[in-house]
């Protein structure tokens, strides 16, 4: 788990006096407190007279309906004083904008004078004559909608907050990092009935959390949190002056709700977050979950708000991650949409996008570097602008990513050219317990769609409740594969269920896939194809409905295998796609790398039950990058590796209770506890990929053979996190000391490249090559942290022969507590 270090706290809390707390050269914070007179708590029931340019925030409490209709006690920074008994308590604020000219304006959209996009979707400037089915976007034109809890401050503006504590305990409002990284600006503790003012100059463009750090994370989880965006006043269509340009931006607040903590807080109990850790039962995105977040409820007001604030949407365009401001000569540029993701909750979220990979540009208000020489590893995470299809988001972390809103790279031309309507793709957290509500109701948690706009936008069914949505996912018998082609590679995947014996002797009921020869074993057999090949996978789901989602591959929605954006399959269906071909030096092209496939029906359960298998895409061979005998390349211009020793390691964990559940557990609305993943058995699955599979029920390595420093070609190790909790891989030497021997070359099926040169004519070299022949890669690491559904490809560079160790550790997603350790010997010859 990543935590932001706090070097010191900036606090002005001298009794009754104003304390100037100067930090940095341009930012000044000022806090002023007013103690409450005896009995003053009652007096604050009336709203304080408004002061021009001052934003009043009221620490309130009240009951809030969750997506299942249950009422949960919450607290929040509201915009008017309300009582706990108020049927409509004020626990959040409508978005507010501090302007550089000194004004404070309430507005759901920004820039104030820009046109808000209808339904949140920016219209195009026109069609792109050079690219069929694509459009030119309007540059610096559309406003963006923001969710409740948002405060926007233009750089140079003076932010004036006046916080009124209307509750019975002390509270405060704090904003880490906004003045300088590692520093926290705070009102200081505000006593019941008291008021504190906080004034500072917004200087550092970025995304910041404001919250009550009292007894962290308790008050934050109870709802006392929101987001401050500092935006460049001179260029509102970039995330910072000279920063990343975007068409429009989105702000996603990830929230977790623990009703037990809420009940105890309401009763006035003290909550020790270490003694009684949070157990979230609801998971929200912008204060909405499930069918509300997906805008398919019967409540048009909720649907509209979600479309405007949450469900990213735009017309397909050419984008270029080397330079998002690359002019197209017709007044348009090559950018996508910026999404600021903020984790206000307590669990680690794994934000997975279907349809497009996303380009990560910033974390915690600091740009990721583009230059290979500036790349680094921080606590096991590579820091470099990069493609991802799963973005890890730790508590209190803020990441800014660009959704390119481009043609799905793996869709067939005929399918794309015949497109007549919107393509809907899911975005969901792949730490799958977060996809539940009230212990079931999949998909009822932290979920959104994003929409690749098409010529028409057919209406989708709406639902009266989350229970109706969960139990009525669209399904078809044996739908047609549109524009079916003769495949270069075809695979069969039959559903099976069987009790399987695991390496520790435990047996569990497992559901998975088999082919004609694999037998009923786990993980399901590998799908391995080449870039540019047309691939088919025929699913035979047996009695029930299932799908195959080709995680990280990006075809059209019919071939994406998600019920609510296409269909579930009861008869059979042949998925068809064509992995995009790589081009040397082009960071926008290519799909070679590590993936996996899994069922996307009641996913939280079906993936844990074993309905997953590895999927690997090998690169095309480019004449400039020939391949030695016995070798492959990791990607088109990537390093060669030894086919004979290539390996895949898959950390997996089993919660035995879940393996007693039925196919549709939770879908009828019953609470089956799918928000509680409590693994008891931990395994490192997989093994060497060449040659026959091992003969047991479950494939796992007893050891791996790794090529040594004298070998002609190194070994490639692929890793996939197939469980729901974060894992950490550490390489150890014979003495048990960490050793840097894993060079990260790709993540989520995309290479790490130096993209510092914005000129499209200049190749973007892989990181290792960009460093020069004799230099080691800055992404050579002894440790790799990777969460649910993430994949990494590593070239192994052991310093000597001998026996090394790959140590895997599992950590709890909320507490960060180590749950288990497993090791795999690495025999270096």
């Amino acid at each position, binding site marked *: 788990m990543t935590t932001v270090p706090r070097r010191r706290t900036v606090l002005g809390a001298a009794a009754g006096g104003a304390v100037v707390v100067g930090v940095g050269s341009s930012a000044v914070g000022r806090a002023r407190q007013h103690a409450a007179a005896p009995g003053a708590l009652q007096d604050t029931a009336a709203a304080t007279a408004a002061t021009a340019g001052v934003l009043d925030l009221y620490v309130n409490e*009240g*009951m809030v*309906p*969750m997506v*299942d*209709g*249950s*009422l949960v*006690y919450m607290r929040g920074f509201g915009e008017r004083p309300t009582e706990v*008994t*108020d*049927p*409509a308590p004020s626990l959040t604020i409508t978005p507010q904008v501090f302007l550089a000219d000194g004004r404070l304006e309430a507005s759901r959209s920004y820039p104030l004078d820009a046109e808000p996009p209808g339904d949140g979707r920016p219209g195009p400037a026109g069609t792109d004559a050079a690219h069929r089915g694509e459009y030119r976007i309007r540059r610096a034109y559309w406003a963006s909608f923001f969710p409740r809890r948002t405060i926007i401050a233009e750089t140079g503006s003076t932010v004036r907050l006046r916080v009124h504590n209307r509750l019975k305990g002390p509270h405060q409002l704090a904003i880490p990092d906004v003045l300088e990284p590692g520093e926290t600006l705070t009102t200081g503790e505000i006593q019941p009935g008291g008021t504190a003012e906080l004034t500072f100059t917004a200087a550092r463009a970025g995304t910041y959390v404001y919250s009550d750090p009292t007894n962290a994370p308790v008050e934050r989880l109870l709802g006392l949190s929101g987001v401050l965006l500092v935006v460049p006043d001179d260029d509102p269509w970039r995330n910072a002056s000279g920063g990343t340009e975007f068409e429009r931006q989105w702000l996603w607040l990830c929230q977790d709700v623990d009703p037990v903590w809420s009940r105890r807080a*309401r009763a006035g109990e003290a909550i020790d977050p270490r003694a009684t850790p949070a157990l979230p039962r609801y998971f929200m995105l912008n204060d909405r979950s499930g069918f509300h977040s997906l805008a398919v409820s019967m*409540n048009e007001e909720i649907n509209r708000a979600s479309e405007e604030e949450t469900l990213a949407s735009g017309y397909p365009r050419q984008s270029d991650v080397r330079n998002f401001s690359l002019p197209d000569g017709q007044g348009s540029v090559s950018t996508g949409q910026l999404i600021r993701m903020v984790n206000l909750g307590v669990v680690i979220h794994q934000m997975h996008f279907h349809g497009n990979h996303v380009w990560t540009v910033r974390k915690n208000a600091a740009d990721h570097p583009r230059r290979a020489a500036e790349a680094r590893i921080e606590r096991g995470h590579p820091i470099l602008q990069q493609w991802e299809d799963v973005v890890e988001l730790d508590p209190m972390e803020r990441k800014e990513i660009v959704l390119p809103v481009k043609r799905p790279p793996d869709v067939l031309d005929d399918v794309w050219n015949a497109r007549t309507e919107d393509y809907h793709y899911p975005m969901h957290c792949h730490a799958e317990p977060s996809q539940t*509500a*009230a*212990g*079931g*109701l999949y998909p009822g948690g932290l979920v959104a769609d994003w929409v690749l706009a098409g010529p028409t936008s057919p209406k989708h069914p709406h639902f*009266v*409740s*989350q*229970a*109706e949505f969960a*139990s009525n*996912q669209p*399904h078809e018998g044996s739908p047609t594969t549109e524009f079916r082609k003769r495949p270069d590679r075809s695979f069969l995947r039959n559903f099976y269920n069987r009790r399987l014996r695991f390496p520790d002797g435990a047996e569990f009921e497992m559901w998975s896939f088999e082919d004609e020869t694999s037998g009923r074993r786990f993980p399901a057999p590998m799908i391995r194809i080449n870039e540019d090949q047309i691939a088919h996978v025929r699913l035979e789901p047996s*009695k*029930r*409905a299932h799908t195959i989602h080709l995680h990280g591959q990006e075809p059209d929605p019919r071939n994406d295998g998600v019920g609510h954006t296409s269909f*579930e399959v*009861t008869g059979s269906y042949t998925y068809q796609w064509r992995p995009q071909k790589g081009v040397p030096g082009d960071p926008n092209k290519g799909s070679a790398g590590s993936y996996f496939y899994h069922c996307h*029906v*009641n996913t939280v359960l079906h993936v844990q039950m074993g309905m997953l298998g590895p999927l690997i895409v090998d690169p095309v061979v480019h004449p400039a990058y020939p391949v030695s005998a016995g070798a492959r390349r990791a990607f088109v211009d990537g390093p060669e590796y030894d086919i004979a020793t290539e390996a895949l390691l898959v950390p997996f964990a089993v919660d035995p209770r879940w393996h007693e559940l*039925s*196919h*549709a557990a939770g*879908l*009828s*609305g*019953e*609470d*089956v506890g799918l928000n509680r993943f409590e693994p008891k058995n931990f395994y490192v699955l997989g093994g060497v990929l060449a040659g026959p599979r091992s003969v047991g029920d479950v494939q796992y390595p007893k050891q791996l053979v790794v090529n040594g420093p004298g070998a002609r070609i190194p070994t490639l190790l692929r890793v996939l996190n197939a469980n729901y909790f974060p894992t950490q891989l550490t390489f150890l030497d014979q003495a048990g000391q960490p050793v840097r021997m894993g060079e990260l070359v790709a993540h989520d099926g995309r290479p790490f490249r130096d993209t510092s040169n914005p000129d499209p004519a200049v190749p973007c070299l892989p990181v290792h090559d960009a460093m020069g022949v004799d230099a080691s890669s800055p992404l050579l690491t002894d440790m790799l942290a990777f969460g649910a559904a993430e994949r990494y490809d590593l070239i192994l560079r052991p310093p000597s022969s001998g026996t090394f160790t790959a140590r895997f550790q599992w950590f709890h997603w909320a507490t960060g507590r180590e749950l288990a350790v497993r090791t795999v010997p690495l025999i270096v010859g």
Partner: protein
Amino acid sequence: MNPHGVWTGSVLVGVEVHNGLDRPMLFSPGQFRLRVGADGPTVTAYDAARAPGGLPARSTLTTWVRFRAPEDAEDLAVEFTDPDATDVLSLRLGRATDTGVAS
């Protein structure tokens, strides 16, 4: 067609909710859950006649809540969670109209 095997039974419960307080309060049909079997799970409402909203002081509303349930389910009970109460109110079905579900 029911490929998932979701529950096909339906339990429609008519309820009367009385706000005996001298102030309005928030009421949500989701405060009702169906318990299937004495030790079985509770179930989220599938449909309801009204959305969450205010219930005026000293007023009574009559409404209904519908749940999915197994076709052969026995020993059903409706539970009501009142945020101001410490206990969950449980009503065996068949007697649901015997008493108001007051808070």
